[in-house]
């Protein structure tokens, strides 16, 4: 069992650096979801740790082994890529047993362990099937079984759920979580979806522009973002304001914690009301909030600070209405700095 530690990684696959002094630790036996917008460098980090991308600077440690400089096939890392990447000329079983074949295991052992791996991912009777006839979800499961067969010290998955439809996605997510928990495997999962990251990870690391900007338990990222950029990525509206006794600052509040009340201390205009299935998402323009004492005038609609609120469909106001808003003090999070 060994944890992953990346220290000050700089990687430039093209001309410009994609990772800029990135540091990340995944404690032994834990699962971290690495989340970030497209182009943040998530896949580059995975490739750098796996040894598929050259480091310009920095160190990669797995337990007490230093990995940078070690050939990829000697790193004891298994990767599940975005697409399954199965070998079409081999049967399902031979695909799963590929890492064992690489390790020179005898045929009998390969058979039993591949079968065991397939049963673990719920494909027990698929051993002799051809790869070509499998659905996308089944192929991705085979890829997971293959990665587990390698008995790696570190498992990395690059957007493993992205190509699947919602129901299968949920199944595979459960499978990954279960297998990781059973084996206590140090795991890094990449995703661009913040909800998926929260569902997958005991801990979530947010990556923006080649750096980890916050690495914490999921709730912390959603409710106590460390900066405006973090808040923006996790969909937390940010409003300027003034806390009693603490001076002006910037505050974040989750849309589901914003309360509508006709006698609320803040007035707002509903700019947009969108029905999303579970709730109505309101975009509100606050009037007069956040402006200094010398400017208490009402800003024109749409120009003031914006706020998002999620309300039950039955109680939702329409676009254009003026409403009162309450921001419960215990739900407000003051951004540092």
């Amino acid at each position: 069992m060994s944890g992953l530690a990346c220290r000050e990684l700089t990687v430039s696959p093209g001309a410009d650096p994609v990772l800029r002094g990135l540091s990340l630790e995944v404690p032994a036996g834990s699962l971290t979801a690495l989340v970030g917008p497209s182009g943040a460098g998530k896949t580059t980090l995975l490739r750098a740790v796996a040894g598929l991308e050259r480091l310009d600077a920095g160190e990669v440690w797995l337990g007490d082994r230093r990995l940078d400089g070690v050939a990829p096939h000697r790193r004891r890392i298994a990767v599940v890529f975005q697409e399954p990447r199965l070998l079409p000329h081999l049967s399902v079983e031979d695909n799963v047993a590929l890492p064992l074949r690489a390790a020179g295991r005898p045929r009998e052992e390969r058979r039993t362990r591949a079968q065991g791996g397939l049963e673990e991912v719920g494909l027990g009777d698929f051993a002799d099937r051809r790869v070509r006839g499998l659905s996308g979800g089944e192929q991705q499961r085979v890829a997971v079984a293959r990665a587990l067969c390698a008995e790696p010290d570190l498992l990395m998955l690059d957007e493993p759920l992205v190509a699947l439809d919602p129901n299968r996605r949920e199944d595979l997510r459960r499978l990954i979580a279960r297998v990781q928990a059973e084996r206590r495997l140090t795991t890094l999962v990449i995703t661009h979806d913040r909800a998926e990251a929260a569902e997958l990870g005991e801990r979530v690391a947010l990556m923006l522009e080649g750096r980890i900007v916050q690495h914490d338990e999921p709730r912390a990222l959603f409710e106590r973002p460390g900066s405006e950029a973090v808040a923006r990525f996790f969909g937390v509206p940010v409003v300027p304001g003034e806390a009693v006794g603490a001076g002006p600052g910037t505050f974040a509040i989750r849309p589901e914690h914003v309360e509508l009340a006709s006698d609320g201390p803040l007035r707002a205009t509903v700019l947009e009301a969108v029905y999303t299935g579970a709730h109505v998402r309101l975009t509100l323009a606050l009037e007069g909030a956040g402006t200094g004492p010398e400017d208490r005038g009402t800003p024109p609609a749409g120009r003031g600070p914006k706020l998002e609120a999620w309300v039950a469909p039955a109680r939702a106001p329409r676009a254009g209405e003026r409403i009162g808003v309450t921001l419960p003090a215990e739900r407000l999070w003051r951004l540092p700095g």
Partner: protein
Amino acid sequence: MPLLVPPYATGAGLAEWFIRLGLIDSLAGLVLAHLTAVAPYVVLILVAGFGPKLSGLEDMGRSLGLSPFRRLWWVTHPSVGPTLGAALVLGFLISWSQYGSSLAVGGGTPMAPLVLLPFVRPDPQVAAALSLVYVLPALLALLVTARAARSPL
């Protein structure tokens, strides 16, 4: 370029250059002339087969512990096998059908199509039998490329 230009134009240009370079009527010249026609097709097929999907599979092999030699043998070789086969057969087919350039540059080197073609004219029965000989490489090419298409990369 040879893919886009009519074969007669390519052939005439080649003949002129080969005369200047002293390659005309030589085996080397003949091989060069055929390569000019064959290379574009072969390159097109190989580019398709050696694309990002292959490097994806190779990265998979690397990360799962395959040493470079085993990776070549178990991942790269079987993955590009059908592509290589298709390129080989199609290359042969193009070369087989190079009647004009063989005649223009070869200086009488006995190539199968050149030797056989005169027999086609006089006797319909011989012509019929010969047409089978001509169609054989094409059939073979069809079979191999069909197999390559079933395991696309």
